């Protein structure tokens, strides 16, 4: 890999807590990621992976904790600052969440036009380039309802990339897809990694995680149980619970 | 008592209570008649033979298509031209019932259509007769599905009963208009009249909500606006 990882972290997450009602979902999570690094979150259903990723982007408002982008803490009560921060953190949802009333091109363009206030012609050019990057140039004028799941997810990746994010958060990007469509999305994510994109991804695809991750983070019941290099966590974890989960999931998904 | 309050308590309220009683005498029979007409027309449209279906369809199209005021004028001012004379009260009740029945039939029809074929087959399979099927399978389901719509229709009827005044049947609105014209206290009078209608409508929708809650079973939940 050609990634230049400098020592200062791009994003740090400190002591994030979140409860829904009196049920604690995140019990103080710490995380930091350097430029070009790829971290993969694994853990059983309900562990809090989605909640953590959405908290990092303040789509879920954490009850406590601190998030810094390039050393600067983010203040979610400052509306303008929050919008600016979110532009720099790309988010990919499990269920794509493409804007249903806009074409593929419109989906990618709208952030540039409305948020970045770019001129429409310029935005169109950039959006088209991003769509071609994910292999969807020919489908630019189709509406979400006319695209396959894999294509939708690639559009949503293009939508995030168009804003030049410093970090991408991917929440199970392929778990809503039919098995034969997973490959095309994985290929796009792999290319992103190769191009040096900093990413935090939650996934149940253990083989893909092993191939892609610099580090795997195992979460359960809202806390990080163990983290480390893929081979260590997946094959030879220190913690009993991690081993149990990884054995089960590798049996299911293969290596 | 003197002044505004005196006017409201001594002059306005007795007249308005008289009007309210007349309104209720308009609303209740019209609601009952309208509902039965709706059930009749709705059933004809879904289960009827052709000779029943098209007259029912025509009835619904006409009575939903004509403004209620036009219908009332036809009953009250139009029919005398062919020798039929209806009193203001009768013309109003006829007008309300026929119009309301057309709207009810839409909800009844929708409810009947929503009952899946499998339900009827299952009823036959356990050996029910036609009547038993209707009583024990179709009605309990259809009533639940039609209730929100039919309930709304009754709320509408409460409000539209004010149109009886236009054919000189002096109910709540009419009593109000008479006093207001005599005293020029339009704002006070119609504010009070409005409050009475608001109360009527609110009580009726509260009661309908209670009935719906009582009848709610899983799979037949209501989403009220």
């Amino acid at each position: 890999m050609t990634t230049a990882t400098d020592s200062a972290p791009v994003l740090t997450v400190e002591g994030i807590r979140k409860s829904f009602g009196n049920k604690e979902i995140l019990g103080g999570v710490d995380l930091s990621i350097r430029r070009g690094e790829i971290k993969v979150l694994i853990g059983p259903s309900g562990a809090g992976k989605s909640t953590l990723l959405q908290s990092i982007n303040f789509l879920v408002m954490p009850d406590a904790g601190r998030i810094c982008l390039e050393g600067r803490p983010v203040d979610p009560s400052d509306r303008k600052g929050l919008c600016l921060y979110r532009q720099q953190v790309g988010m990919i949802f499990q269920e794509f969440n493409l804007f249903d009333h806009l074409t593929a091109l419109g989906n990618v363009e709208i952030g540039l036009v409305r948020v970045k206030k770019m001129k429409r012609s310029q935005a169109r050019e950039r959006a088209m380039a991003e769509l071609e990057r994910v292999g969807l140039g020919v489908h630019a004028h189709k509406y979400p309802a006319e695209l396959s799941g894999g294509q939708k997810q690639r559009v949503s990746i293009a939508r995030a990339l168009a804003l030049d994010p410093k970090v991408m958060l991917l929440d199970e990007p392929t778990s809503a897809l039919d098995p034969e469509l997973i490959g095309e999305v994985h290929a796009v994510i792999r290319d992103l990694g190769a191009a040096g994109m900093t990413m935090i991804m939650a996934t149940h695809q253990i083989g893909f995680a092993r191939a892609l991750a610099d580090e795997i983070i195992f979460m359960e019941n809202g806390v990080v149980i163990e983290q480390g290099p893929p081979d260590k966590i997946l094959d030879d974890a220190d913690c009993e619970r991690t081993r149990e989960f990884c054995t089960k999931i590798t049996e299911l998904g293969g290596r | 008592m003197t002044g505004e309050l005196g006017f409201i308590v001594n002059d306005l309220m007795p007249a308005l209570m008289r009007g309210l009683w007349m309104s209720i005498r308009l609303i209740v029979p019209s609601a009952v008649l309208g509902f039965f007409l709706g059930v009749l027309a709705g059933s004809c449209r879904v289960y009827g033979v052709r000779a029943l279906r098209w007259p029912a369809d025509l009835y619904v199209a006409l009575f939903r298509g004509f403004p209620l005021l036009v219908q009332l004028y036809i009953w009250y001012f139009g029919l005398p031209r062919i020798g039929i004379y209806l009193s203001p009260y009768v013309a109003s009740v006829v007008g309300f019932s026929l119009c309301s029945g057309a709207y009810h039939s839409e909800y009844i029809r929708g409810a009947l259509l929503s009952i899946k074929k499998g339900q009827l087959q299952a009823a036959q399979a356990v050996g029910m007769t036609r009547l038993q099927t209707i009583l024990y399978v179709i009605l309990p389901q259809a009533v639940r599905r039609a209730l929100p719509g039919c309930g709304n229709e009754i709320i509408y009827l409460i409000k539209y009963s004010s149109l009886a005044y236009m054919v000189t049947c002096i109910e709540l609105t009419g009593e109000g208009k008479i006093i207001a014209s005599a005293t020029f206290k339009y704002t006070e009078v119609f504010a009070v009249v409005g409050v009475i209608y608001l109360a009527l409508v609110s009580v009726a929708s509260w009661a309908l909500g209670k009935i719906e809650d009582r009848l709610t079973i899983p799979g037949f939940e209501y989403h009220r606006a």
Partner: protein
Amino acid sequence: MSTPFSVLQQSLPYLLQGVWVTLVVVLGSLSLGLLVGLPLAVGQVYGPRPLKRIIGLYVWFFRGIPLLVLLFLFYFGLFPFLHLDFSAFTVAIIVLGSISSAYQSQILRGAILSIPEGQMKAARAIGMSDAQAIVHIILPQALRLAIPGWSNEYSVLLKDSAVTYALGVAELMARAHHVASRTYQHLVLYLCAGFIFMILTFLGTRALNALHRKVKLKGYS
């Protein structure tokens, strides 16, 4: 005495002028209803609690009082009391529009609430403010969903507009009654007016259906 047919023939141009008045009243109040109903719907979904309360009261008020009572209250009562010298025509549009805004706000509220939560999340995730997300993402979708509801609202307003005759607005119903009382052909004239109302409902609904097909999103149900 004239025959029903000759009366109809002679009065038809006069009645058709009333159709224009009816249509202006209906389209005017439908537009006013949208103009007011849209912010009400947005406020009721996204606004702070006190605002939601106030909007709820407004809706309750205009949906709970008969049109005829509101027409009398505003035309003979409130507006003169406030020294506002509005014509019957203007009051008709204001009152019908206010009632319609209450109903339209509920149509739109339903449409907004039916849009999946993910749309708002995705909009925020690309850095849109809530206001931008509502304007560029939520409303374009909600307004499309609301068209069938409008179609219904149009036909309700059309029929209700006949009631404005009580204030002396020279719309279709008023003209039919006027001719009827001079010629004693009540039955024929009211039937004729009724059918014209039906035709107007049919045409308007057709137009809105065409609009619905035109702006409908491909493959979107």
